[in-house]
């Protein structure tokens, strides 16, 4: 890539880095639903999500609505309790226990739920595979997955793929829930997410603050999108999204200078240095961690998603301070370059696994109706995710990823199903299109 390349080459990379795994997860869940779903033989499973009320198609509308609301409330309470338990354990420094428990949860998901999904696929497509081969391959798949997801060793692509696989398995399993329960549950979880992340007493907010005050990674399943090495070569490290949004804000405030001053928490080991060609100011791009948590278990609670990955931009105000900070930056930059290849390298945006799961559940449920609703819900979710990412660049602290996307997704699903489908199908079956 020549140094005079256009900005169009690299801008928007982080957003795509998060949107592609989400899209892949949704696409594979839709494929799974299409191949495995059979409304005549669908058996409802008993899970934590329908403890109270088992929906059957013959119930009246009000009965279904009440039952689903009860189910959703019970599920949200269960999740809130488990999240508080998690915060408590983390507060008392039982981090080891949390790590081992998460590994066990990942193992259980890959082996039992993943195994059942694979078995139904084999049955459906009549793959000629015997028990021994299947057991060996499945065992390998599970063990590698368990080792990969929570540790920092191993290639990042493998870790990302296993995260997506985890999301697909849990989402495919969740799509077996009955229809009304699914919709009400999604709404309830979106509201819970909003409250848990933004309200002052929310468990996830406390968790994020604890983790950032102790300056360590959360012991949870979070998808991390690493920026590519190209950005380092072109001399722009750190988040160009932050600079771009900051530029918009700078323009809007009418100031001539494009510098942004923010309250920043200085963390030496997180500094990425970036110097302008004419050396007028040194912009430190700091990247905080985001939090997004946990895995779904059927009888154990689950975590709610957060999105994070903030970039704080700080401008050094005066030459004397700049000299002092130069030294600090110089040393920290050396540390940075030494650990470039390690786990602490360039940070990217992080999205929790629960987001993947519930986006895919929404799209999977839309797939059970029609392909038009799938596409509409996919676009709605992606645009909600884009809005959340832009808000993230503006607000610079952890944000819930579920509410906007789920709200848009549900809105578009019902609009498409009720309004658009009769219109479009009517015109296109008469072969009159525009």
């Amino acid at each position: 890539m020549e140094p005079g390349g256009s900005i169009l080459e690299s801008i928007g990379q982080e957003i795509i880095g998060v949107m592609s795994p989400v899209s892949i997860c949704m696409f594979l869940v839709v494929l799974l639903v299409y191949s495995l779903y059979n409304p005549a033989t669908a058996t409802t499973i008993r899970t934590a999500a329908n403890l109270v009320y088992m929906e059957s198609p013959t119930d009246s509308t009000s009965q279904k609505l009440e039952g689903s609301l009860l189910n959703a409330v019970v599920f949200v309470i269960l999740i809130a309790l488990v999240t508080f338990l998690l915060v408590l354990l983390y507060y008392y420094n039982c981090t080891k226990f949390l790590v081992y428990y998460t590994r066990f949860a990942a193992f259980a998901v890959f082996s039992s739920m993943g195994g059942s999904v694979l078995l139904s696929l084999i049955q459906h497509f009549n793959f000629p595979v015997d028990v021994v081969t299947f057991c060996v391959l499945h065992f390998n798949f599970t063990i590698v997955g368990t080792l990969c997801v929570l540790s920092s060793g191993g290639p990042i692509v493998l870790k990302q793929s296993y995260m997506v696989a985890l999301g697909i398995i849990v989402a495919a399993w969740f799509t077996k829930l009955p229809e009304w329960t699914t919709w009400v549950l999604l709404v309830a979880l979106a509201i819970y997410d909003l409250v848990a992340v933004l309200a002052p007493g929310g468990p996830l907010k406390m968790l994020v603050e604890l983790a950032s005050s102790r300056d360590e990674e959360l012991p949870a399943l979070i998808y991390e999108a690493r920026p590519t090495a190209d950005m380092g070569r072109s001399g722009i490290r750190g988040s160009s999204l932050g600079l771009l949004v900051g530029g918009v804000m700078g323009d809007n405030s009418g100031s001539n200078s494009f510098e942004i001053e923010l309250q920043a928490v200085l963390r030496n080991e997180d500094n990425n240095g970036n110097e302008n060609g004419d050396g007028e100011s040194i912009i430190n791009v700091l990247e905080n961690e985001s939090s997004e948590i946990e895995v779904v278990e059927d009888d154990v609670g689950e975590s709610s998603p957060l999105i994070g990955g903030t970039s704080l931009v700080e401008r050094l105000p005066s030459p004397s301070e700049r000299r002092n900070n130069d030294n600090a930056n110089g040393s920290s930059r050396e540390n940075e370059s030494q650990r470039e290849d390690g786990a602490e390298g360039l940070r990217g945006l992080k999205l929790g696994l629960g987001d993947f799961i519930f986006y895919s559940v929404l799209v999977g449920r839309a797939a059970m109706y029609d392909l038009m609703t799938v596409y509409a819900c996919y676009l709605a979710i992606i645009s909600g995710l884009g809005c959340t990412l832009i808000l993230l660049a503006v607000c610079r602290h952890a944000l819930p990823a579920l509410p906007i996307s789920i709200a848009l997704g549900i809105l578009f699903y019902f609009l498409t199903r009720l309004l658009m489908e009769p219109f479009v199908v009517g015109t296109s079956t008469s072969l009159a299109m525009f």
Partner: protein
Amino acid sequence: MENSVKGDGLMVPKNLQPFKPFSRSNTRSTAFESTGIGYTLLALGPSLSLFIAVIAKKPFLILTLLSSTLVWLISLIVLSGLWRAFLPFKTGSLWPCTLIILTSVAFQEALRPLFWKIYKRLEDILDAFADRVSKPRLFITDKMQIALAGGMGHGVAHAVFFCLSLLTPAFGPGTYYVEKCSQMSFFLVSAVIALAFVTIHTLSMVIAFNGYAEGNKVDQYFVPAVHLIAAMLTLVNLAQGGCIIGIPLLYIMALLTMGHCGKMVWRRLTEIRSRQGSSF
């Protein structure tokens, strides 16, 4: 819920599992899936190649494509909201169809200048960003690529909603025919029409943006005219056996759009090149 009547006596089953009485041989199921994939690729094949060759490399263009598709989806939802009270109309009757198509085309063409205004704002932001990180401003090819991505969003939205969403039965055994056009299966006809429209929509955006940028009235009026004529031509399909005439005429419009766009792009590039005087 299993079967529903949509449109002109066309029964489209609602369940997604294709009816497979014997699932022992894999060859039968692959034959069914391959026809479905074939129809999909017929409508979206060129867009897919264009996507992989041009758009997939630049993340910003992917974002433009997604937002453009979203905008056109919203336009379709608004249109269907407006017309919902009058549905279901007796499909195959001329006047309701004409009215619907006229209003829809008018609404969509009214959205295009709006698109252009948003794009101008975006261009300013991008240029400011480029200045700040000491990189060159947007080239003319960059601007055309953004317009192309926007147009492709429109084309993909059309193909998915008018063609692909009805292709679900094509992945199983059996096929459907529309009375008015019984020579080919319905899936084939709609895929072929969708291909023409995808081409028209994709290239119209490039022409329109260039027209707005240069203030060229010919280009600005060319795009809505082509859209309107193409939509009107599909009304020919309402007549018995009309699709034999309608579809080739539609392809003539698509080729016209392609030719005009190619000419315009060539003219602009040579203009810029001669202005720069050195190799581009």
